[in-house]
């Protein structure tokens, strides 16, 4: 049973030694931290994509244009990086610098990235010209999801284990989980894990047809929530083996102590009423971390602000935590729903919550959902935080939970 009040001895977990992030609330770790602490949302109007839906949606968009990103990254003008790869490279470089890594072939280093959009932002612009216009043809090869990952790995100098994961909106959580398992098993000494997704017309219109996009800033866990805001972002964490950490006297930011992956097996896009997949993922993560539910100090919820997700997730949270629900919030009202990157964005936010000993607010909440009556934390709250549980759920019933613990 997961609801026992008795404290367990936590598994040591895998060391996190670096982080990097770019999102609608900041172009680096510090800017993201400042926005979270000052309740500054990044949700606004769509600027970079010409879409008919622009007036009917709000998004969490990154200010930089592709040209600016290329300049910052000092890439050659003639390249076939898509926006997903550009954002990913910004965040991955920061993570490597933050962990003070030198990529050296004698150390087994891996790179695992998550994405759902991949090169779609360029494909959708040039799709009908691929056969005829030679200037656009360089983007044929950058369409598939592995291309951006490979480009980032090449820029970082990683030649060993490199892969890409795509399980819709839980993708990055699964990338982080796989990385942790490869470290635990001794197959890698260190691994950079996370995800990247850019906004695209394809996803904007896709979510629009599902009628789950809000025309206002999203309101997670509110009774009157109208749907989600899409966002774009990239974030990566550096995981290193304990042996390596000790040998090199590395600073550990926090530990990834638990992880769980389950499938709702209910519907291709909708979550079950009982939140079965979410429940199983959280239960598994607590088991792996060897923690009881009562030891969780903060839940960074998936909380997309769609009617379906927030109710289903609330029910699942109640099944795990019963009447003693820890402080919880969704940070989607800051960044928008960044799809495959969300699990990594929120992993970084979970570590920041531990570092700052603070719970970041669930913005825009007014009225509790009548079926569950759960009230998220709505203003910045300082408290002792030992363990943070972070949820990511996606299409296809893919549900994943990560638990981060104080080092």
């Amino acid at each position: 049973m997961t609801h026992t009040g008795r404290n367990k001895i936590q598994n040591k977990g895998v060391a996190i030694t670096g982080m990097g992030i770019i999102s609608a609330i900041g172009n680096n770790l510090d800017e993201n931290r400042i926005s979270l602490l000052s309740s500054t949302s990044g949700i606004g109007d769509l600027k970079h994509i010409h879409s008919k839906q622009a007036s009917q949606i709000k998004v969490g968009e990154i200010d930089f244009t592709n040209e600016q990103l290329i300049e910052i990254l000092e890439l050659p003008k003639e390249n076939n990086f898509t926006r997903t790869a550009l954002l990913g490279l910004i965040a991955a470089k920061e993570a490597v610098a933050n962990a003070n890594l030198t990529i050296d072939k004698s150390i087994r280093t891996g790179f695992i990235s998550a994405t759902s959009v991949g090169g779609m932002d360029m494909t959708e612009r040039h799709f009908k010209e691929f056969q005829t216009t030679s200037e656009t043809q360089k983007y044929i090869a950058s369409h598939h999801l592995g291309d951006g990952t490979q480009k980032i790995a090449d820029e970082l100098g990683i030649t060993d284990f490199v892969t890409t994961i795509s399980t819709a909106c839980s993708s990055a959580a699964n990338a982080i989980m796989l990385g942790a398992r490869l470290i635990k098993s001794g197959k890698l000494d260190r691994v950079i894990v996370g995800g990247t997704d850019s906004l695209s017309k394809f996803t904007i219109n896709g979510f629009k047809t599902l009628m789950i996009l809000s025309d206002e800033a999203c309101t997670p866990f509110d009774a009157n929530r109208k749907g989600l805001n899409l966002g774009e972002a990239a974030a990566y964490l550096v995981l290193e083996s304990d042996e390596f950490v000790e040998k090199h006297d590395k600073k550990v930011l926090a530990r990834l102590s638990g992880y769980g992956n389950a499938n709702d097996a209910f519907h291709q896009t909708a979550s079950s009423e009982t939140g079965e997949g979410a429940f199983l993922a959280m239960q598994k993560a607590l088991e792996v971390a060897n923690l009881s539910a009562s030891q969780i100090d903060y839940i960074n919820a998936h909380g997309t602000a769609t009617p379906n997700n927030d109710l289903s997730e609330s029910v699942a949270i109640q099944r795990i935590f019963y009447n003693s629900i820890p402080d919880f919030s969704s940070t989607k009202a800051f960044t928008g729903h960044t799809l495959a990157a969300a699990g990594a964005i929120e992993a970084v936010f979970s570590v920041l919550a531990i570092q700052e000993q603070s719970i970041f607010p669930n913005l825009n909440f007014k009225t509790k959902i009548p079926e569950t009556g759960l009230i998220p934390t709505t203003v910045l709250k300082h408290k002792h935080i030992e363990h943070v549980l972070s949820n990511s759920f996606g299409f296809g019933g893919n549900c994943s939970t990560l638990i981060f613990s104080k080092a």
Partner: protein
Amino acid sequence: MKKCYIHSAVSISAQHSFESSGFELHSISGKKVEAIHPNYKEFISPIALRRMATGVKMGVAAATKALQIANLEQPDAILTGTGMGCIEDTEKFLNAIIANEEEFLTPTAFIQSTHNTVGAQIALSLKCKTYNNTYVHGALSFESALMDAQLMLQQNEATNILVGGVDELGAEIIDAVRLMEDKTSDGINLPFGEGASFFVLSSEMKNEGIELIDVQSFSAISTETIHEKIQEFLNLNELSFLDIDGLVLGNNGDAFDTYYDNLIAHFPETIPNICYKQWSGEFYTASAFGLFVASEIFRKNEIPQNWFKNKPSKSEMKTLLLYNQFKGRDHSFILLRRC
């Protein structure tokens, strides 16, 4: 650390590979070659079938049959590799956006365009709530799934795992890739193909089974150091070049086939070389068909001569090495042993 065994191997491909009674290989030609489709109604309900794109149908049918052969109702994990994902529904939704200028769109194609659709549909059809993951890294998509499966079995996180690779041809993006290949004189010299190959892997040994000894992948290796990397891999598994009884290779006729040539040079000339993509066509998860071919080699008592690229004098194959790469990148090594 627990070992890893292959309990079943099923493939839908450009060959009659889905037939249970065995199959004769035939040559394929052209720019693109579609898979030979089985009667999907035997595996999927007519209502579900109507909505499914080719890749989903192939994946669900191959997965279902792989479970049947292994006599397994519920796997402990479902791991799917796909390079291009659900390209048919992706193209369908993209075309609808363009043609209707973002209006009058319906969600079905979008819903089914996500790369995890095959893994999700398998889970849904089995009501299977366990670990479910989808790997989408070009020519390492299937190997990533296979590696994770081995990791789970070794670490005792699972006992029986369904693992597979699937890709469909679609009608536009892969045609554009083909166009680019044909522009160069030393591009891929085989048809582009499609297919789904699924396997049940288990930590429990069965009589006359196949052991998956190890699987490893690298993002980049130079042509000069490929044999060193293979040697390290073999040594890691306490084997040498001389212990390998057969090579199963991913040659596709392009300039990067030199990797295979450099590798073959380090093995005895007497052992068989089998190049499988001439039968399946080239696609990101063609290497899953390669693993299926390797399983067939173990299953058959006698291998027809037309399976071999060379004229080997050695015929008994106990330990096989599979090697694949794509455009000089995404190298994978798989070691199998008859047990």
